[in-house]
């Protein structure tokens, strides 16, 4: 409703100047109060005329596409970066070279084929596209044997282009949608609270303008998320699709459309089986909102939607396979869904369980036991979240339970990340999504004149510092990947870009924070920077390097553990 009062064209020049004046006053007032008004990107955006915000969707899309393309630019430094980087990629080429959906769907032994069904459809689509575009010139592209990546710049660019395309179709629109919708939710809440306050139309209009700006920046915060940028675009991977589907499902929940949310969650989980880390929270939420609130019709509609989605997914298979094979297929696809069964217990754990094992030298613990232990710890760690969610979510308090859902998703996925037996540093992408969404939640203008308002803002600012610290920490965890494939420039630039744009390091210039907290953060950041610089610049002995790696791993894991505790605290408070 704010936008309507502003966008009417018959504001004459005098009014326009008044509006500008009011906006300047408000900016001055808010600058001290809100974190987002101190960020560099905000100050840049205010330099340009307001009309630019009519093009916000185009600008956000283009800016995030631009940064993706920039990250993707990279030379071949020695070893070819892509082939070694990810197993997905190998399976992608293998799969598309044979074009046999059947063979791929039925195999359950080869880990290269261990991807769920939508991933298969997606790569099939992309390879069709590639064949259509380049078949005339590069017949050899989709066969692994003839592939020499060093020479084939075009092929590499095409692969990166498909990642960008997937992002542009699946990830960018839901991110913009989320930021806008969250802004609107807050506005509605505030409107309901302060209906009768006496405000001039100019003030309302100016606040509306500023809120548009804030939404703009919030969508950029989601889309410039550094780990996704690095892992998807500097390496190779289609996490954009997964995160986009997850975001769509969260958006649907925020829009009170549970059926749609279920369908999109299925889309996500059938693209990347790691999405199962969100399952407990989603299941608890869906059950609580439908069957335990005695709205059976909703429940029935959800079940129906899920069945429809599943049958649509497997319909193409029905054409290819006979009945025996179908049973086989269902079995394998179920297996594929549970990444837990795939972890090979012959290998040592890559997570911190290996150190636990080292502690008990006398009593020898087998890997099987460790795996069991990790499962138990995992279940125990997600139990409080689930119980709290079950208790406090309800239909009558929808807006509150939506925020609890965000916290729940973050803490649940983090506990999976912390305590699972197998550890892959790329899987940090999943917990980072809800954590980024919580940044959006904290970056809002709370306009009401309640008593607790200033306290709330202060509180938000504290959380923001913590959340940005977690963002930086997530970048720190993927350092081993970076050092292995020599992607240091992109890594450093992305970190600086993110912190510069959104004020991630503003904690050192903030006035309201005590000195000892600042010093603590300073210490942590300097340790992080020091270790990275040490391992990048100086050739160390392998022994020392190993110790350093262990130290880095422990540092990142313990800080994630602290942030997990902090999330529990935040959720319950």
């Amino acid at each position: 409703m704010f936008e309507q009062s502003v966008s009417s064209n018959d504001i004459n020049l005098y009014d326009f100047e008044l509006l500008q004046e009011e906006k300047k006053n408000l900016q001055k007032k808010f600058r001290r109060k809100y974190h987002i008004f101190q960020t560099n990107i905000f100050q840049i955006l205010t330099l340009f005329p307001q009309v630019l915000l009519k093009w916000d969707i185009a600008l956000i899309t283009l800016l995030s596409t631009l940064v993706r393309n920039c990250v993707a630019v990279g030379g071949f430094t020695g070893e070819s970066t892509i082939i070694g980087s990810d197993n997905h990629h190998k399976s992608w080429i293998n799969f598309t070279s044979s074009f046999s959906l059947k063979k791929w769907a039925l195999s359950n032994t080869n880990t290269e084929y261990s991807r769920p069904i939508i991933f298969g459809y997606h790569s099939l689509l992309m390879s069709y596209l590639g064949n259509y575009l380049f078949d005339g010139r590069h017949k050899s592209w989709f066969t692994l044997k003839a592939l020499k990546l060093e020479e084939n710049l075009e092929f590499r660019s095409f692969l990166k282009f498909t990642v960008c395309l997937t992002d542009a179709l699946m990830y960018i629109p839901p991110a913009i949608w989320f930021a806008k919708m969250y802004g609107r939710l807050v506005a509605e809440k505030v409107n309901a609270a302060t209906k009768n306050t006496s405000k001039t139309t100019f003030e309302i209009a100016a606040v509306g303008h500023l809120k548009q700006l804030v939404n703009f920046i919030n969508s950029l915060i989601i889309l410039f998320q550094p780990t996704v940028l690095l892992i998807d675009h500097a390496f190779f991977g289609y996490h954009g699709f997964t995160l986009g589907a997850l975001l769509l499902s969260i958006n649907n929940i925020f829009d009170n459309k549970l059926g749609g949310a279920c369908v999109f969650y299925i889309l996500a989980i059938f693209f990347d089986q790691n999405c199962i880390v969100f399952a407990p929270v989603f299941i608890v939420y869906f059950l609580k909102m439908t069957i335990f609130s005695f709205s059976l019709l909703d429940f029935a509609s959800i079940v129906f939607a899920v069945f429809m989605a599943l049958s649509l997914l497997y319909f193409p298979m029905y054409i290819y396979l006979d009945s025996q094979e179908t049973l086989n297929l269902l079995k394998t696809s179920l297996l594929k869904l549970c990444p837990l069964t795939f972890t090979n217990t012959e290998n040592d754990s890559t997570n911190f369980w290996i150190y636990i094992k080292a502690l008990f030298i006398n009593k020898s613990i087998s890997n099987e036991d460790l795996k069991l232990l990790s499962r138990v710890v995992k279940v125990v760690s997600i139990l409080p979240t689930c119980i709290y969610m079950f208790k406090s979510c309800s239909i009558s308090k929808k807006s509150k339970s939506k925020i609890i859902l965000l916290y729940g998703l973050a803490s649940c996925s983090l506990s999976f990340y912390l305590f699972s037996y197998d550890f892959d540093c790329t899987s940090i992408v999943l917990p980072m999504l809800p954590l980024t969404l919580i940044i959006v939640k904290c970056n809002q203008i709370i306009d009401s004149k309640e008593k607790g308002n200033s306290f709330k803002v202060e509180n938000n600012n504290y959380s923001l510092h913590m959340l940005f610290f977690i963002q930086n920490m997530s970048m720190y965890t993927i350092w081993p990947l970076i050092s292995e494939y020599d992607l240091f420039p992109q890594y450093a630039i992305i970190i600086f870009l993110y912190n510069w744009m959104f004020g991630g390091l503003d904690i050192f210039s903030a006035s309201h924070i005590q000195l000892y907290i600042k010093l603590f953060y300073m210490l942590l950041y300097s340790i992080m920077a020091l270790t990275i610089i040490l391992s990048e610049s100086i050739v160390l002995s392998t022994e020392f390097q190993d110790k350093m790696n262990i130290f880095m791993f422990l540092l990142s894991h313990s800080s994630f553990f602290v942030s997990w505790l902090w999330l529990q605290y935040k959720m319950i408070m």
Partner: protein
Amino acid sequence: MSVKQAFSKITQFLDSPLIKIWVFSLFFKLFLIFNYTRIHNTKLVNILDITKTLSPIKWYHEDLDYPPLFMYFQHAISLLKPKQLKDPRMLILYQKLTVTISEFICVIIFNVYSMEKYNLLISASIILNPCIFLLDNIYFDYNGFAYGFLALSIIHVQRKSILKAAFIYTVSIFLNKNFIFMVPCFCAIFVKSYCLKLEKFEFKTYLSLLKIFKWNKIMKLTLVISSAILLSLIPFFVQKATFKDFEETYYKIYPKKSLLINEKQSPSNVWTLYSLFDNSLSQLFKYFNKINKFKYFAKRNSMPVNESNDFINSKNLFNALPDIEPRINFYFIAFYQFLAIIPLFFNYEFKRFIGSLTLCCYSIYLFGRNIKSTDILLVIIPFTFLVIFDKRLLTPFMLLTSCGIVSIFPIINSPDVFMMKLTYTTIWMIIFYISFNSSVKNNAENRRVWFFDRLSLIYIVSLFPMIIFCGVLNTFEFKSKKYKQIASLIYNCYCSLGIITSWFGLSWLYNFDEHMWT
């Protein structure tokens, strides 16, 4: 205390709006600097080796056509190069970093200028200009540096400090050889606004004609200009260069013989359309030859037909139309520059000056010989200063910039930056066209824009399908290689049509709309 003051000054500097915008763009540039390890510009690859020795005469024995000051600049860079730098990859990195640092000079210049409201928009649009961004960081050139000096001299003209403007402009000629084509316009404004006194002029005898000139100011001006020239040529004198050396150097920079259309970077100018016309005529010619209809064509049959697949690039010989002599180029340029400069003698306001400067650059770009497509910056930079004055100028500006930027795409034809150049250009277009549109002053009479607004908008938007269509033609190979040439022909002609139309628009407004310029 002084440390604190310095610190606060630095933070103030970093807080200024233009620096913030530049830092934001710097992050994107850094990605390219560190990861895009190729240099397309073949001339600049070995320049550091050549300029290592301090002997400017020898530099010009190589195949280089850069003016002296630029060579000294390269010499300084090669001196500053760390000695342990042997790895060719690190060398490229070093060269690319020097581009960014030299661009920073341009940014500092604009930062001082951008304190006023509209100037911020102008300076932001120049330092973020996709032409400069793509050419400097991907293609590899020092455009930001050179055009920064040109912009500085324009700014000094605006502030009416003519001596400084003259000095800086003279220096900038020695940085980029193409700036010399603006000499008539700059001379006119210097003479008219600085050296002439016309207010109380009465013609009594021929001697009174001498009183028009402010002789002491003329002396000052010549002193300043000649000192700038001498300063730029000092190393030549130190090396005891003879007159012959100077002559050789001059002809190296401005060669006597040159092709009509540059072979590697065909520009989008009149001659592209000319060659299209020639091409279609020669096709007709072939056809009539076959059916033996018209006598005229039969007569021309005796001439050998240039059967080349290359439609534009090898088109310095024409089949049906007469060849273009350098004389003809000169006549065209002289005529249009003359038309642009005449009004300056009646009215030498900044607005008039910058309009005439833009038209001079247009005439060079459109009718010049051996022009490269990168030279479109010559037109874009002055026009950016001009567009803020009137809303009607916006449409020609939009046409010029969009077509000009798109016309330099083919020289950066690496597949991994294809998407990037498109997105960057689109972002720039959206941001600056809309900002200019909302902050440009409306003309006093509030007249409707005469120029075909909608049509040009459609034209600009359809640049995108055109790029994709030409890309498809480039990618697919049907039966022979012919389609690649047709694609480049379509591409160049489309762009040149836009640029020529924008030239018409500006010329019309310049010559027939007196209210706008007073």
